[in-house]
């Protein structure tokens, strides 16, 4: 699989720590986008990740996104008492007891769930679109962190697997506690199925047809699980 993209932006633990020290990311969070880090050019603030994509979301959505990611970074990175850096518990979690793929998945899911729960506790509903995209950024950051910390440099396949696992953990936990509307998602599936049968699946879920081809080419996707 060669679809996992990379960019040439330098990054590193020291840069992350520097960002923590500054504690002034673009949204005021203590994440790896802090001022000192930006000054070092380690992780330029913001942007669309070099993909050239133009944001197409509302300011409110972007604001929620920024807050979600920044707060997730607050969980990942410490700025306590000048001992800036990655929380050791997070690094330990990323090790996954010898299974870094599992570690990445569970860590990402846990942090996303923690942020979402906390938001819900304060009466803020995070839109699913924000959750998906913000969760992806956090997941990617953790994958980078896992690599930079020398824990593991997961292959594209393993990274993708961890992504699905993280989604699984989150979805099943949220379903178990009743925070997901099963009926709403069932209707969504019907909408998707109809679109698929009409040959316009990508209109509903951009990139889904690519996923179909991808899995079919892998010889899977035949329902034989």
């Amino acid at each position: 699989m060669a679809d996992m993209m990379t960019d040439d932006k330098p990054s590193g633990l020291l840069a992350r720590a520097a960002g923590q020290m500054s504690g002034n990311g673009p949204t005021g969070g203590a994440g790896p986008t802090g001022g000192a880090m930006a000054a070092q050019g380690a992780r330029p603030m913001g942007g669309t990740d070099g993909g050239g994509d133009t944001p197409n979301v509302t300011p409110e959505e972007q604001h929620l996104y920024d807050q979600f990611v920044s707060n997730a970074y607050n969980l990942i990175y410490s700025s306590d008492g000048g001992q800036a850096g990655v929380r050791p518990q997070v690094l330990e979690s990323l090790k996954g007891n010898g299974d870094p793929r599992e570690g990445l998945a569970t860590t990402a899911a846990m942090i996303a769930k923690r942020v979402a729960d906390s938001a819900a506790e304060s009466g803020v509903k995070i839109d699913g679109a924000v959750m998906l995209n913000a969760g992806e950024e956090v997941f990617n950051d953790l994958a980078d962190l896992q690599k930079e910390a020398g824990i593991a440099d997961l292959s594209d396949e393993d990274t993708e697997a961890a992504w699905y696992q993280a989604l699984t953990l989150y979805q099943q936990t949220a379903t178990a506690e009743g925070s997901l509307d099963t009926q709403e998602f069932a209707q969504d599936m019907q909408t998707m199925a109809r679109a698929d049968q009409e040959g316009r699946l990508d209109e509903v879920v951009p990139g889904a047809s690519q996923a179909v081809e991808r899995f079919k080419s892998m010889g899977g996707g035949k329902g034989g699980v």
Partner: protein
Amino acid sequence: MSSVAKGVGKVFKKVGKVAKKVAPYALAAGAVYFTAGAALGVTAAGGWGAVAGSLSSSLGLSPGLTAVVTGAVTQAGYGAAIGAAGAAITGGDIGQGALYGAAAGAVTGGISGAAGIGTDPLGSGTGVTGGNAAPAAPGPTGVANLQPPAGAATAPGSAASYVTGGNAPAAARGGGGLLGPGGWLERNQTLVGETVKGIGGGLLQGLSAQDEAKALENRDRRRAGNYASGGGLLDRAAVVNGARPGAAHPTVEEKYAPSHGYRIEYRYNAETDQVDRVRVA
């Protein structure tokens, strides 16, 4: 359409920069997969192992979508590859094992995970230690454990009981895990001071909590300075904006019997952290 599926087409300005990225098709597949799981209500009570093979009948999925969902299931390691062994390890419920992390290693091929060793990545280091865990056993580091919500933790046969062997008290589950009483939040209030408190009160208010923490820090520093010798608020030299530099106090006339139509007051200026001498009409 739920916003999860709509989220695939949305482009946000990133907060940070990342090198590794989930492939676009994986983002789409993930959205479909997530939606299917939520639609089917896949939880510890069911699991992908029980439903993924009958997606067409259960959800009326088209072949394409079925391919996506089952492909993601397989890719995630919840598919046929784990077979009976995985199901046995997870109590016949693959989803259950995946959900709570204790057997996640087994699900994904790592048998070590079946020991149920878990560490709350943001906890104090006391984590789930598996079915035979002693209540006070310090949790070794290991597979991160996504603790079940408090409600699920008490249900007979629930995943929580699975994780802890069914009989372990709450203390053995790492003090409530992430979500429950005595969980991560309660155990880590002091980790980053006001920031974590802000998280506890609503993480999305964390920014204001940070600001508050910063303000408190500044306040404490000012106070410390005030009581330090050779400077600070109580030092005469601190009065630098007065009409008469070096004079910390107004004259009696200035204060009580102004003959010039105004009186002098000294007001603390939080912006400059100094005392300003101001004329008051």
